[in-house]
C-alpha cells in the first residue's frame, strides 16, 4: 500500500478546476487508498515546498522549473492562456515606457520572468521591487507601477489609466499562447495512476466551470469582498484559461523559456521539460497475452501472414537473427507483391520555411522565430515556381511539401499556395505532416478536421507521415517535449483517413529507444490502419488509409542530441524487416536510401521493402544532417534491377504509371 502523494495546489481561482475535483471526490488507488493529500498555498510557496521536499506534487510557476530540471511534469495539463489572461497585469498611471519602478505583488517567478522578457524586448529597464501580496496596486502612483497576479487582478480594470495584460502582450510578440503553471513532481513519485487521476480531475473541473464560479462568488461575498457576477468568473474559467497543454501551448512554453534565455534572463541552458509519460490503454491491453516463444516458429507464422502480438514483436526484435528476420520479411513481401516489381517515384522534397517554434533537439534544420530575420526563410512563389518547374521537367509527378512551424504563415497562406500550385502545375501535393496540421489548427483555432478539409479543398492530395519519430511519449518527451504527442499525431492521421485522404507513416530510430518503444510505435500504426480499413469496408473505398511505411536512422550530426545510439544499417535492416512482418495491414514499405545509400537500399529490397522511394531532388532536413546521396532515375532502376526486381514508376497512391509515360 502506497502512502498518498502530498499535493500542493494554488488558491487562485484559475487553479480550482485542476484541484477542486480532487477534494470533492478524492481519487483512490487500487487498494482504495487516496492517491493524494491536498494542501493549498500561493504559487511561489508551492514551488518552495516542492523544492524543499515538503510536498511531492505541486502546481508550480513554469519558471521555477528552470531551477529544478529534475522535476517531472505532468503532461497535457497546466494553466495557460492564448492571449489576454486577465490575472497577470501591469497597472500604472503613465504609459509603460515612462514607468520607473514596478512593484511586484507577491508575484510568481513566471510572471516576473515574463515581465522582464517583455520589458527587455522593448528596451525598457524600470526598477523591479517586491511587494507583499495584495499591496501592489496601492503603491501605484506617478511613474510607479505594479505587477499584479491572481484573483486580486480581477478588480483592477478601470482603476488605472494604463492596464497591460501580459498574456495579450506575449501573444502580440510571439503569436503563441503563454503557459503559466503546471503540475510538477519530485522525480520518481508519479505513477500512471497519479497522472491519470490529475487528467481526470482536470476534465471534470473544466466541466464544472459554472458551479465553481458560483461557489467562488459566494465565498467572496460571504467574506465581504467585492465580486463580479458568476458569468464573469465562469467565462474566465471556461474561455480565458486553457487547462490542456497540447502542442500549441507547448510551442508557447518553449518559446518563453528559449526567448528569456536568449535575453540572458536565466541560465538554464538547453531548453527541456521532463514530462512524465502515460501508457496508452490499447498497448497495456496488448501486453497481456503471454506464451513461451520460439524464434523460428514465430518467423514462420509471420512469413505466412499471421498477425504478431506486441510481445512477440518485442521478442523477435531482441532475439531473431537479422538474416532470418529479413528472409521472413522477404517472403511476406513476395506474398503481398508477387509481381516482382519495385516501384519508385519522381518527386521533389520542398521545405517551404525553416522557421519553427518547436525546437526539437534532434533537428538541425529549424531557425527559431527570434532569429528569423537573420537566418529564416519562407520560399516565395518565384522560388517555388522555379523548383516546381524543374520537377516537372525531370518528369516529377509530385511535391513533398513540408516545413517548420512558422506562426507567421496562416491557413490562407497555405490555401493560396495550394490553389496557385494546382492552377499552374500538374503536380500532386503530398503536403504537410501532422505536426504542421496541428500547428495550423491551433493557430486558427479550428479543429484538425476543419483544417484538413480546407486544405484539401485548396488542392492538398495526401499527407506525408513526417514528425512521427518514435510514437511513444517516453521517447518524445525526451527528444522533442514541445512537439505533438503520439495521440495528437495519430489523431491527425485518423481525421485525414476519415476525410478520404491517403497518408504515409514513418519512423526514425536511434534515440535510445528500447525494443518496447519501437514495437509500440508499430503497434499503434497497425491499430490505426485497422480502423481505417474497417471504415473502408463499412463505408466505402473513398475513405483513406496508410499507403506506406518508411523507416530511417536518426542522423545526429549537427543536432543538439548528443546520442550515440546504434543507427547502423544493420539495425535499419532489422527494424525494416520486422516492420514488414508486424505491419501486416500496410501494403507498401519504402526503402530510405537517402540516409543509407543505394547499396543498403538494394539489400533492404530483399528484406521486406517493395519501393525504392524517390529520386530526391532536394531533401533539406536530411541533408543538413549529413546525408548526401543523389540518384537519377536510371541509377535507381539500376539498383532495383541489381536486387532482382523490375523497376516501375508510381504516384503517391502507389498506382503504377503507364509505361508509355516513362
Amino acid at each position: 500500500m502506497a502512502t498518498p502523494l502530498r499535493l500542493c495546489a494554488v488558491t487562485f481561482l484559475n487553479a480550482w478546476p485542476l484541484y477542486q475535483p480532487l477534494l470533492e471526490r478524492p481519487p483512490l488507488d487500487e487498494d482504495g487508498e487516496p492517491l493524494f493529500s491536498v494542501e493549498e498555498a500561493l504559487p511561489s510557496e508551492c514551488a518552495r515546498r516542492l523544492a524543499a521536499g515538503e510536498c511531492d506534487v505541486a502546481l508550480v510557476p513554469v519558471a521555477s522549473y528552470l531551477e529544478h530540471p529534475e522535476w517531472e511534469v505532468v503532461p497535457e495539463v497546466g494553466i495557460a492562456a492564448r492571449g489576454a489572461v486577465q490575472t497577470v497585469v501591469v497597472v500604472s498611471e503613465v504609459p509603460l515606457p515612462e514607468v520607473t519602478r514596478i512593484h511586484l505583488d507577491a508575484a510568481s517567478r513566471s510572471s516576473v520572468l515574463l515581465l522582464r522578457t517583455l520589458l527587455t524586448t522593448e528596451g525598457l529597464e524600470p526598477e523591479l521591487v517586491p511587494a507583499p501580496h495584495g499591496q501592489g496596486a496601492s503603491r501605484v502612483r506617478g511613474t510607479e507601477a505594479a505587477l499584479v497576479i491572481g484573483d486580486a487582478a480581477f478588480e483592477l480594470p478601470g482603476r488605472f489609466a494604463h492596464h497591460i495584460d501580459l498574456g495579450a502582450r506575449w501573444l502580440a510578440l510571439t503569436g503563441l499562447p503563454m503557459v503559466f503553471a503546471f503540475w510538477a513532481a519530485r522525480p520518481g513519485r508519479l505513477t500512471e495512476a497519479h497522472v491519470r487521476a490529475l487528467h481526470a480531475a482536470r476534465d471534470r473541473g473544466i466541466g464544472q466551470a459554472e458551479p465553481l464560479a458560483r461557489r467562488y462568488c459566494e465565498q467572496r461575498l460571504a467574506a465581504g469582498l467585492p465580486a463580479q457576477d458568476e458569468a464573469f468568473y465562469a467565462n474566465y474559467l471556461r474561455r480565458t484559461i486553457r487547462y490542456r497543454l497540447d502542442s500549441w501551448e507547448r510551442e508557447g512554453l518553449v518559446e518563453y523559456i528559449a526567448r528569456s534565455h536568449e535575453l540572458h534572463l536565466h541560465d538554464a541552458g538547453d531548453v527541456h521539460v521532463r514530462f512524465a509519460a502515460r501508457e496508452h490503454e490499447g498497448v497495456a491491453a496488448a501486453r497481456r497475452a503471454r506464451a513461451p516463444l520460439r524464434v523460428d516458429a514465430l518467423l514462420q507464422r509471420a512469413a505466412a501472414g499471421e498477425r504478431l502480438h506486441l510481445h512477440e514483436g518485442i521478442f523477435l526484435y531482441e532475439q531473431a537473427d537479422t538474416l532470418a528476420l529479413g528472409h521472413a520479411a522477404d517472403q511476406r513481401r513476395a506474398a503481398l507483391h508477387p509481381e516482382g516489381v519495385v516501384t519508385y517515384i519522381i518527386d521533389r522534397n520542398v521545405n517551404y520555411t525553416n522557421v519553427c517554434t518547436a525546437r526539437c533537439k534532434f533537428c538541425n534544420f529549424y531557425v527559431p522565430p527570434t532569429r528569423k530575420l537573420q537566418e529564416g526563410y519562407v520560399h516565395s512563389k518565384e522560388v517555388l515556381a522555379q523548383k516546381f518547374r524543374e520537377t516537372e521537367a525531370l518528369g516529377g509527378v509530385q511535391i513533398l511539401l513540408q516545413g517548420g512551424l512558422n506562426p507567421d504563415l496562416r491557413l490562407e497562406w497555405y490555401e493560396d499556395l495550394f490553389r496557385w500550385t494546382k492552377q499552374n502545375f500538374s503536380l500532386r501535393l503530398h503536403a504537410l505532416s501532422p505536426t504542421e496540421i496541428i500547428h495550423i489548427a491551433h493557430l486558427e483555432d479550428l479543429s484538425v478536421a476543419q483544417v484538413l478539409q480546407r486544405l484539401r479543398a485548396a488542392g492538398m492530395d495526401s499527407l506525408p507521415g513526417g514528425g512521427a519519430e518514435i510514437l511513444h511519449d517516453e521517447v518524445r518527451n525526451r527528444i522533442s517535449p514541445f512537439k505533438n504527442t503520439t495521440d495528437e499525431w495519430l489523431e491527425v492521421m485518423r481525421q485525414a483517413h476519415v476525410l478520404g485522404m491517403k497518408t504515409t507513416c514513418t519512423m526514425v530510430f536511434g534515440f535510445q529507444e528500447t525494443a518496447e518503444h519501437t514495437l509500440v510505435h508499430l503497434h499503434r500504426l497497425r491499430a490505426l490502419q485497422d480502423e481505417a480499413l474497417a471504415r473502408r469496408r463499412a463505408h466505402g473505398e473513398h475513405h483513406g488509409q496508410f499507403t506506406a511505411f518508411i523507416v530511417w536512422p536518426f542522423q545526429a550530426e549537427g543536432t543538439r542530441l548528443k546520442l550515440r545510439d546504434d543507427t547502423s544499417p544493420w539495425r535499419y535492416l532489422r527494424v525494416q524487416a520486422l516492420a514488414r512482418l508486424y505491419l501486416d495491414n500496410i501494403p507498401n514499405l519504402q526503402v530510405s536510401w537517402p540516409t543509407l545509400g543505394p547499396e543498403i537500399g538494394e539489400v533492404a529490397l530483399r528484406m521486406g521493402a517493395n519501393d525504392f522511394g524517390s529520386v530526391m531532388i532536394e531533401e533539406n532536413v536530411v541533408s543538413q544532417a549529413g546525408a548526401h546521396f543523389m540518384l537519377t532515375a536510371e541509377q535507381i532502376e539500376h539498383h532495383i534491377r541489381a536486387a532482382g526486381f523490375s523497376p516501375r514508376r508510381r504516384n503517391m497512391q502507389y498506382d503504377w504509371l503507364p509505361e508509355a509515360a516513362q
Partner: protein
Amino acid sequence: MSPATDSARFRTVADKVRAGEPLAFDDGVFLYRYPDLLAVGALANEVRERLHGDRTYFNINFHINPTNVCEADCQFCSFARLQPGMPQAYTMSLDEIRGKLVERKDQPVTEIHIVSGLHGGVPWSWYTDTLRVLKELRPDIHLKAFTAVEIHFFAEKYGKSYAQALRELVDAGLGSLPGGGAEIFADRVRRKICRDKATAEQWLEVHRTAHRMGLRSNCTMLYGTVETLEERVDHMLRLRALQDETGGFQTFIPLAFHPDGNRLDKLPRPTGVDSLRTYAVGRLMLHNIPHIKAYWIMIGLDTAQIAQSFGVDDLDGTVQEEKIYHMAGADTPQVMTRTGLIRLIREAGRRAVERDTLYEVRWEDDGRPLPGIRVEASVPYSRHRKRVELSVL
C-alpha cells in the same frame, strides 16, 4: 530453371556445404544466380560461424606506396603514372619511406602494407632497402609487401628466379605477401584489362613458391569490370586448387572495381547486392581458405557491416587512433577510428578481435564500455550472447 527446381538444387548445394564437400564450378555459378540472396548469405554465414563463431577480425596497419611509376598500363588502375617525370608521378627516397613510419611511431601499428607500381628505373637495392630501413626502425613490425605481379616483374627485370627474389626480400625483412594483382585469372579478361603484367600462371607460381618457402600470403579477385560470373567462379577455383596444394593462403579478399579516374569509368560500380553475393559465394567456394576479408574503403562501411553476415570475418581499412582522428577533425570515409570499428562490429552482433598479420589475437572485445561508445547497444542481436541493457540518456 523454375523456382521449384531451383530451391531443390539449393538444398542439394546446402547439403554439400554442411557435409564439408567442395562445391563444383556449376554450384558456384548457380549460387551467383540463385534469386534468394539471403538464403545464400545465410549459408555462407553458417560456414563463417562454424569457422570463426561470432569473431570479426581487424588489424591496425598502414599503407606505403613507394612509387606510382609503372610500366604496365592496366585499364582499371587510377594509381599508376607511366613515366617518371609525368605530372603527379613520384618515387620516394629511402628517407621519405622511413619518414612514413616515423610519423606513426606513437601508434600501435603492427603491420605495414607496401605496394608499388612496376618501376624498372630504380636499382634492385632500392626495393630491398625499402624493407630494411623500416625494419631498422621497428624490428618487430610485420612487412606485408609486394604483390605477385611485382615479384614477377623483379624476377624479369633484375634476372632472378622467383625464389631468389623472394629470398633476398625475406632477408631484408619481408614477412608475407599481399594478395593483389590477381584481378581475374581468365585470359580473356586479362587481355582486356591488364595485358602487360604477370599472367594467371605466373601469379599463381609466385604464390606457390612463396608458400613453399614458408611464407604466408593473401589472394584477391577484382570484380565488376568486364568479367562474367563464370569467370569469377573459375578464378575462385584456381585459387582453391593452389590452396589444396600448399595451404599457404590466409585470406581471400574480393575487391570491388572502382570506376573513378580510370579508363573503365563508363562502367557502373558493383552494386551492394553484387558485393554481398560475391563474399558469400567466395566463402562457400573457398572452403579451404580460412578468412574472407572485406575492404570497407571499397564497398563502404555500411555494406561492410552487413557483409559480416555474408561470410566475411575480417574487416580491413585504415584504422587510426582517436587522437589523430580528432586532430584532423574529419570524418573521411578513408579513415576509421578503432572504437568506431569496434562499434560497427558490435552493432552487427559480432565480437571484435584485433589480430596481427598471421591472425594471432592481440585483443578481444569483452563487451565492456569503451570510451566514445556511450550506449552499449552492443551485441543485442547475436545468437551467441545475451542482450546488453541500454543506458538511457
